[in-house]
C-alpha cells in the first residue's frame, strides 16, 4: 500500500480537520468528535434543513455537498462505515430552522438503520423529518426492483435540486417530493479498473487482471454485473449510455443532464473521452444535453474507473440545477 497518510486510524479525523482549516467561512463542526459538519450559517431560520451522511472515502460525497443551495449538514462515518444515529441526530438538531429536516442519503443497510433510529429521536426533540434514499445504480438491481438499488454518484442531482428548493423556501413535503422526483429520473452505471485500498487494512478490496474491468461496480468496490476485457473509452461510453437510456426510457426530443464522474484515480482527460462519446451518442438519438458535469463527484478512494449518470430533465428540474449553490467542492453561479 502506498498512501499519503499518518496513522491509519486518524485518517478520517485528520482530513475532516483539513477541510475545516481550509474552509472556515463555509463550514463548521458540531460536537466534540467533530464528525458532524454543517454550513457556517446553520441553522437557517424557517428553511427546511437537509442532512446527509455516510461512510468516508467518497469525497466530494458526502461532506462536499454541504453549503448554500445544497445540504445543510452531514454526519461522517469511518471509511465505508455508517455514522452513528447519535451523530445524525446531532446534525439534525444543528440544522433545524423550524421547518423540518430532510434525510437524503444513499441506500445502504447501515446508513438506513442509523438514519431510521435518528427519526425517532428527532421526533422526541420535536423535529419532523422525511427520508429520501439515493438509489440510482442501475447495475445493482433490475428496474422492477429499483427501490432496492444502491445510491451512487447520481445523488448529486438530488442534492442540487432539493437544496435549491429548500433555499427558495419550499416546505419539507415539497423538498422531499422534489428529491424523490429527481432520484426516480436518475440512472447511473460505472466501470472499475483497479481496486480501492482501505487505509486501516492496507488491502485491495478486490483483484483485477491488467486487461480486465468490472462493469457495474459500486462505490465500495462491490462487484458489478460482470467482469470483462478492458474496452476502449468509446466502447465503455456506448455500453453505459445505452443501458442508461433504456433504463430511463428516454428518446428523441428528451432533454437530459449528464454527469461523468471519476472514481478517484482516473484522469480528467479520460473522463472527457467518455463525455465526448456520450455526447455524440445522445446527440445522434436526438436527446439534448442541457446541462453537463465532468469531474470527481463521488469517488471510492483511489479506485480507477468512472461512472456516467443521466437525469431526465423538465423545465422545473433544470431551473433547480441552474440555481446558485456554493460549497467547498461545488459551485454554481
Amino acid at each position, binding site marked *: 500500500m502506498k498512501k499519503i497518510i499518518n496513522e491509519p486510524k486518524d485518517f478520517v479525523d485528520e482530513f475532516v480537520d483539513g477541510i475545516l482549516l481550509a474552509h472556515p467561512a463555509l463550514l463548521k463542526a458540531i460536537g466534540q468528535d467533530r464528525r458532524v459538519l454543517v454550513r457556517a450559517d446553520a441553522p437557517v431560520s424557517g428553511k427546511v434543513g437537509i442532512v446527509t451522511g455516510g461512510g468516508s472515502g467518497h469525497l466530494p460525497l458526502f461532506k462536499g455537498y454541504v453549503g448554500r443551495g445544497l445540504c445543510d449538514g452531514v454526519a461522517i462515518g469511518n471509511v465505508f462505515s455508517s455514522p452513528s*444515529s*447519535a451523530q445524525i441526530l446531532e446534525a439534525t438538531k444543528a440544522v433545524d430552522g423550524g421547518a423540518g429536516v430532510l434525510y437524503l442519503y444513499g441506500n445502504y443497510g447501515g446508513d438506513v*438503520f*442509523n438514519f431510521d433510529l435518528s427519526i*425517532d429521536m428527532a421526533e*422526541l426533540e420535536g423535529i419532523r423529518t422525511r427520508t429520501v434514499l439515493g438509489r440510482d445504480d442501475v447495475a445493482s438491481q433490475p428496474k422492477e426492483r429499483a427501490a432496492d438499488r444502491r445510491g451512487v454518484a447520481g445523488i448529486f442531482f438530488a442534492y442540487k435540486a432539493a437544496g435549491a428548493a429548500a433555499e427558495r423556501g419550499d416546505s419539507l413535503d415539497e423538498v422531499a417530493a422534489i428529491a424523490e422526483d429527481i432520484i426516480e429520473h436518475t440512472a447511473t452505471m460505472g466501470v472499475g479498473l483497479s481496486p480501492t485500498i482501505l487505509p486501516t487494512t492496507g488491502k485491495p478490496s478486490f483483484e483485477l487482471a491488467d486487461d480486465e474491468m468490472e462493469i457495474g461496480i459500486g462505490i465500495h468496490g462491490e462487484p458489478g454485473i460482470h467482469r470483462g476485457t478492458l474496452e476502449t473509452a468509446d466502447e465503455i461510453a456506448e455500453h453505459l449510455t445505452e443501458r442508461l437510456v433504456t433504463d430511463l426510457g428516454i428518446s428523441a426530443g428528451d432533454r437530459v443532464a449528464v454527469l461523468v464522474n471519476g472514481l478517484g484515480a482516473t484522469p480528467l482527460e479520460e473522463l472527457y473521452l467518455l463525455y465526448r462519446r456520450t455526447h455524440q451518442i445522445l446527440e445522434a438519438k436526438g436527446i439534448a444535453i442541457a446541462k453537463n458535469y465532468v469531474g470527481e463527484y463521488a469517488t471510492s478512494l483511489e479506485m480507477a474507473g468512472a461512472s456516467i449518470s443521466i437525469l431526465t430533465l423538465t423545465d422545473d428540474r433544470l431551473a433547480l440545477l441552474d440555481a446558485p449553490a456554493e460549497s467547498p467542492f461545488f459551485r454554481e453561479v
Partner: protein
Amino acid sequence: MNGHELSIAIQNCLTVFPEYADELGDLDQALGDGDLGITVSLGAQAVIDALLQLPPESKPTEVVLACAKAFANANPSTMAALVAGALLAGSRVWGDAESIDSEMVNKFALAAAESISQRGKSQVGDKTILDAMFPAAEALRETNSGADRLDAAIEAAERGVITSKELQSRRGRASWLQDRSIGLQDPGATAFLRFLQSWKASNTPSRAAVS
C-alpha cells in the same frame, strides 16, 4: 393507573434496575462492546431525574416521552435509540388518555416490540431483546387476572432468555461472533427480563420506596 402513578412506578423500578448493571455489562462484554452496563446505569438515573421534573398532572404518554428522551440522550448508543423508539411507538398507542388499563399496557408492549423489530430489522430467534419482549407481550395478552399478569410476563421473558442462549446472534456486533455466540446469554433479552423483575420487586407494597 394515571400519569403520576406510572411515573412513581417507573422511578421505583429504575432505583432497583441498576443493581443488574454489572451483570448486563459482563454479558455484553462477551458478545458485544460491553457498554450496556453504562447504558443501563446512566440511563436509569437520567430517566429518574427527568421524571422528577415533570408536573404531577402529566399524562401517561407525557411520562413515557420524558423517559424516552432522557434515556436516548444519557448514553447515545444503538440500544438507547432502539429503546427510545420503542417507547415512542408505545406512547402513540396511548394518545391523550388520562389513565391506562391492562388492555392499553398490552397494546403498548406489542407496539414497542414491533418498533424494535422494524427499526432493528430483527425477529424472534435472532437472539436479541425481542426474544424476551415478544413472548412477554404475548403472555400479557393471554393473562386476564391482574395479580398474575406481571408474573406471566416475567416467566415468558425468562423462557425467552434461556431458549435464545442456544441460538446464534444474527444482529449487531454480536453477529460478528457467528457460531461462537451459541451458548452465550443475550444481554438485551436479559436486560428486558431484569427490568420486569425490578418492576415487580420495587412495586410490590412491602418494598415500594416511594408512594
